[in-house]
């Protein structure tokens, strides 16, 4: 009885969250040697509430789109894919959900994780539980330092600071003559680290650049009138921000209301996360804007990305943000890892074998080629550029688009000291 009730509940959950992606006509599961016939269970952990909920939704949509296609094409080595959702929330509850997926639902792999605090709890848990964990956006960094130098089962996102480095590169290249800078960043590690890093890189190009104001409003603040007044008082040449959620839109709108960017340049390293809310009426041309690791309108995009953008727009009525591709990449690389390990093992690979196979693996993701570095860090390209109104939308896009690979804007190993690297071997040109 007990089992049947649990199965029933699971069925309800699946219907409720739109989880198991149909079992379409292609049930001609090509029985392969050593491959079980039951579905592969993939645990997915999107954030559902709070500031980062839209990011969580985007990651989930990327994974769902992938699962639909993979199941239509026959699954992974003939095994159907079944998605099991558990919510990412605060670190304590998320860890409990992670344990549930690993110990109770017994999934084959877990993808997801956006907040750093959550990543810091999940990384060690993945190792303890010997559970493959492919992070979307979360790192296991404390500040700019890696806390897990030699992981076996956990694979994490790019360093938190890469967009700030990219933003500083573009500032030096496009916004000449910037001497005084002000920063407004969220009051948590990501915000603090981005601001420190941005200044350090900019100083490599403009040694006499100096900070005149640093503001750290709490994440979730929805009124920046007072902050903008402080910025007006400080009169910097440029305002830098790593805002990525709805606060980007609010800041832009309230800045426009007092004409802030008429006299000042700006660098929004991560604002592309809410790109379609940055309407032309209040977002000027000529700002630096970063779209993280996927730019929906990139002219050089692959056929895969173009198809994804089209179908996403048709289904959700908006253009996809970058997190979709983090989601897509984690599951697509898992599939590739399983297939690669299967070739070597001749049977469905263990989690250890998949983990080994993932090291250094490269796959075609939505935004182009992406890979896992040998030390389990995601490698991809970042898209940043200068805002323009010359497009068919009612919001800004970027032109020119600079494609910045992590091989250029991320420190080469997790053990490299970030500031030492920026001040020594960081490639100024290229």
């Amino acid at each position, binding site marked *: 009885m007990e089992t049947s009730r649990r199965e029933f509940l699971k069925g309800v959950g699946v219907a409720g969250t739109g989880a198991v992606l149909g079992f379409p006509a292609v049930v001609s599961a090509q029985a392969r040697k050593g491959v079980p016939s039951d579905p592969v269970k993939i645990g997915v952990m999107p954030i559902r509430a709070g500031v980062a909920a839209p990011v969580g939704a985007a990651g989930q949509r990327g994974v769902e789109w992938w699962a639909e296609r993979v199941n239509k094409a026959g699954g992974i080595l003939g095994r159907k894919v079944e998605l099991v959702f558990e919510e990412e929330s*605060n*670190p*304590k509850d998320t*860890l*409990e*959900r992670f*344990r*549930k997926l690993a*110990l109770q639902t017994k999934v084959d792999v877990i993808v997801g994780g956006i907040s750093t605090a959550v990543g810091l709890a999940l990384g060690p848990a993945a190792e303890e539980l010997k559970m493959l964990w492919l992070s979307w956006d979360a790192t296991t960094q404390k500040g700019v330092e890696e806390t897990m130098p030699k992981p076996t089962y956990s694979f994490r996102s790019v360093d938190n600071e890469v967009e700030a480095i990219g933003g500083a590169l573009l500032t030096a290249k496009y916004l000449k003559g910037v001497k005084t800078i002000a920063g407004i960043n969220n009051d948590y590690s990501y915000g*603090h680290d981005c601001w420190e890093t941005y200044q350090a890189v900019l100083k490599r190009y403009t040694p006499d650049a100096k900070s005149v104001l640093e503001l750290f409003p709490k994440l979730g603040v929805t009124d920046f009138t007072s902050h903008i007044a402080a910025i007006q008082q400080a009169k910097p040449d440029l305002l830098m921000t790593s805002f990525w959620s709805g606060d980007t839109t609010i800041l832009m709108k309230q800045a426009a209301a007092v004409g802030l960017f008429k006299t000042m340049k700006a660098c929004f390293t991560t604002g592309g996360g809410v790109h379609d809310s940055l309407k032309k009426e209040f977002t000027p041309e000529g700002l630096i804007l970063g779209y993280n690791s996927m730019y929906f309108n990139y002219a050089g995009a692959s056929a895969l990305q173009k198809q994804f953008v089209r179908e996403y727009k048709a289904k959700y009525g908006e253009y996809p943000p970058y997190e979709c591709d983090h989601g897509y990449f984690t599951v697509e690389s898992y599939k590739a890892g399983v297939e690669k390990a299967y070739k070597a093992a001749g049977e469905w690979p263990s989690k250890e074998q998949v983990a080994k196979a993932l090291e250094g693996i490269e796959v075609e993701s939505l935004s182009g080629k992406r890979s896992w570095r040998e030390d389990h860090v995601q490698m991809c390209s970042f898209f940043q550029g200068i805002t323009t109104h010359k497009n068919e939308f009612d919001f800004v896009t970027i032109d020119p688009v600079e494609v910045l690979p992590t091989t250029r804007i991320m420190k080469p190993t997790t053990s490299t000291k970030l500031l030492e690297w920026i001040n020594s071997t960081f490639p100024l040109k290229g």
Partner: protein
Amino acid sequence: MRRGPVALGLAAVTILALPLVAPVYHVLLMLPFMAYAVILLGLNLLFGYTGLVSFGHALFMGIGAYTGAVLTTHLGVRSLELILLASAVLGALVAAPVGALCVRYVKIYFGMLTLAFGMLFYTFLLKFYRLTGGDEGIRVLRPSLLGFDLAAVSKTDYLAGAYYYYSVAVLVLAALLMWRIVHSPFGLCLRTVRDNPAKAEALGISIVRSRWYAFVISAVYAAVGGALLGPPIGNVDPTLAYWTHSGNIVFMTLLGGFASFFGPVLGAFVFIFLQDTVMSVVPYWRLIFGAILAFLVIFAPGGLMGLFAGRRPGEVSRA
């Protein structure tokens, strides 16, 4: 009245046998349950026995959790006994002045003051990130138990085995001690202060001082329980000190029934396992939990214990 001891005995046997029979995941879910049970035993000295509802006890849970983190990560102290002791002492040290300010008031005023201090601490944890790790918090390394470092055991086995029974022991001790407290003359004082302050005064009981003792004791319980929450997570962060966390433990108390000694413990148990199920089934679990809470407040203020007892405990309505 034979039912009580029988139920308690059954619960004890179940808890002791659980790691041998239940799936590991459910054993691990018992760890936050036991931590919350300790916290709630203390909270209910204030809520049920003294009539003061704190909306700021996340402060003391946070103190306990961060004490464990700082001791294991920064000071090299790994002994869980020392961590619990230090948490208790720090909890009491902070609760003494905070409590002295808060217990001058009752009802809403008391609730708001505790909320204010709770949020002050939360903001401190978030702001002073060099000291507290900010949003990232601080790691909690695996504590040693009774001098055994148990480093050879896998973390899951450690948690589902030694740490589990250690938590059981802490909970049992905490419950025995609290039982003594509420059945002592002091416990009687608290109830008199709650039900009839004028009479208490006439009897020569210092109302403010009794409340203050209750506040400090409950804070010590919250800090010890908070310290137990840390190791299973492995990393503590400021969300543990946010005001909604304080709200949750009040919710648990009400769910189980604040009018009974074991009510809150039952509440913690039901809350955790209900949340576990509901979260997996529907994304909108907060709506369901809100509805459950509203239902309890309106129709079953005595909580689950009140329903089992089949009668409304005398102290529920005291408008």
